């Protein structure tokens, strides 16, 4: 979310002074979205230049004393933005997928331990979000919804890890030599690598791997 659309959203509720917008913005998003409050006045200036908001009052002031209102173009822009799906085509967990795929190929790496390290980290994060939800005022909808979104996102990653773990375990079990019936009931010692028994798989994702940032 941009400061730009946050301003349009606040102004859609009625005209407001720059200073008040800044305070509102801080109060509503400070907890949940990491947006820069310092950008409020410059953003308002640009919105005015683009004809999406209009102002009156102290012409040359910093914006704090000006009264802003949303224009028709601004309202249209806000509506379009609300309906435009964000870009989800590049999942944020690329790096995690890559690490698990690489772990499959690194001799001596225990994939299940690699997976568990990530699983634990994610679940610990989820515990922290859940504590925030537990302590939150149930009437604070924006906090509750934002925390839920975060929890569902992390949960999806954990489920991917669980599925990967199970898939790898099945493939390794199938690949285990048939003359060791004990292998079916006796779990491998925790530090044994599963790599040896895995067919070498080409790292087909190489092309798609992006270095983020």
């Amino acid at each position, binding site marked *: 979310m941009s400061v730009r659309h946050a301003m349009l959203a606040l102004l859609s509720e009625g005209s407001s002074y720059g200073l008040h917008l800044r305070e509102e913005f801080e109060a509503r998003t400070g907890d949940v979205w990491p947006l820069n409050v310092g950008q409020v006045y410059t953003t308002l200036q640009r919105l005015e230049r683009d004809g999406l908001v209009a102002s009156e009052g102290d012409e040359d002031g910093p914006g704090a004393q000006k009264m802003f209102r949303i224009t028709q173009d601004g309202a249209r822009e806000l509506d379009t933005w609300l309906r435009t799906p964000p870009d989800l085509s590049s999942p944020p967990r690329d790096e995690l997928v890559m690490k698990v795929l690489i772990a499959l190929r690194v001799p001596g790496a225990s994939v299940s331990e690699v997976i*568990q390290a990530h699983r634990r980290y994610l*679940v610990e994060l*989820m515990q922290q979000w859940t504590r925030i939800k537990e302590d939150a005022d149930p009437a604070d909808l924006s906090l509750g919804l934002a925390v839920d979104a975060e929890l569902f996102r992390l949960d999806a990653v954990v489920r991917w890890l669980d599925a990967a773990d199970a898939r790898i375990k099945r493939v390794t079990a199938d690949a285990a030599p048939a003359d060791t019936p004990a292998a079916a009931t006796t779990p491998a010692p925790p530090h044994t690598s599963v790599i040896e028994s895995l067919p070498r798989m080409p790292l087909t994702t190489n092309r798609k791997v992006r270095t983020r940032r």
Partner: protein
Amino acid sequence: MRNHPPLVELRAVSKTYGQGHAEVHALHDVSLVADTGEMVAVMGPSGSGKSTLLTIAGTLEDPTSGQVLIGGQSLASMPRSAKARLRRQTIGYVFQDFNLLPGLTAAENVSLPLELDGMSARKARVAALRALDGLGLENRAGHFPDQLSGGERQRVAIARATVGQRKLVLADEPSGALDSVNGEAVMRLLHSACKNNAMTAIVVTHDAQLASWADRIIFIRDGRITDQTIPAVGPESLLTVEPEK
């Protein structure tokens, strides 16, 4: 340096089912401590030994080797009658198939364990209704199990397990048939009972969102505890604002 024993302690517990070819090592050398007021979640793949761990911690089954202590007392040295009392008064169970008694209403299912314990029928009913109320079932108290939805039956089972100041609640997938809002209500209730009534809970779940209500999460795999979460310093760290560039 504790000044009181943990409420539940498993010491090097192993459990083997069957013999010879049919032998299954369901648990290997599992040690686990749950303190008073603590809520512990157990996560792990299907068949990893979660239910086995719970039935052994709940004294419903004996370990093949190792020790189980409840309130510092070893179960092995406990007379049968004392064990039975423990199961009736101290421990509440929510099973994977939450067996309610079909001939009793929801309220009667919840109040029965209290009455068995010697509470008057009137008092037990009041407590039962309060527990049902807390789980959004105030309008279902007079329904029989076959008149309830799967998720409602599950919540009745949870009310029954938590009613009457139980010290230890053991729950196996307590939110299996519940949608996320009701699942959350169950976990919220269990966690607040741990904090406010000094209850201890061990909850088995495969759902990370539900597990995240616990104070500590234990990961089990092939009958062994492989890892556990480390409590966070404070959740506030997540809410510090990093300005975007």
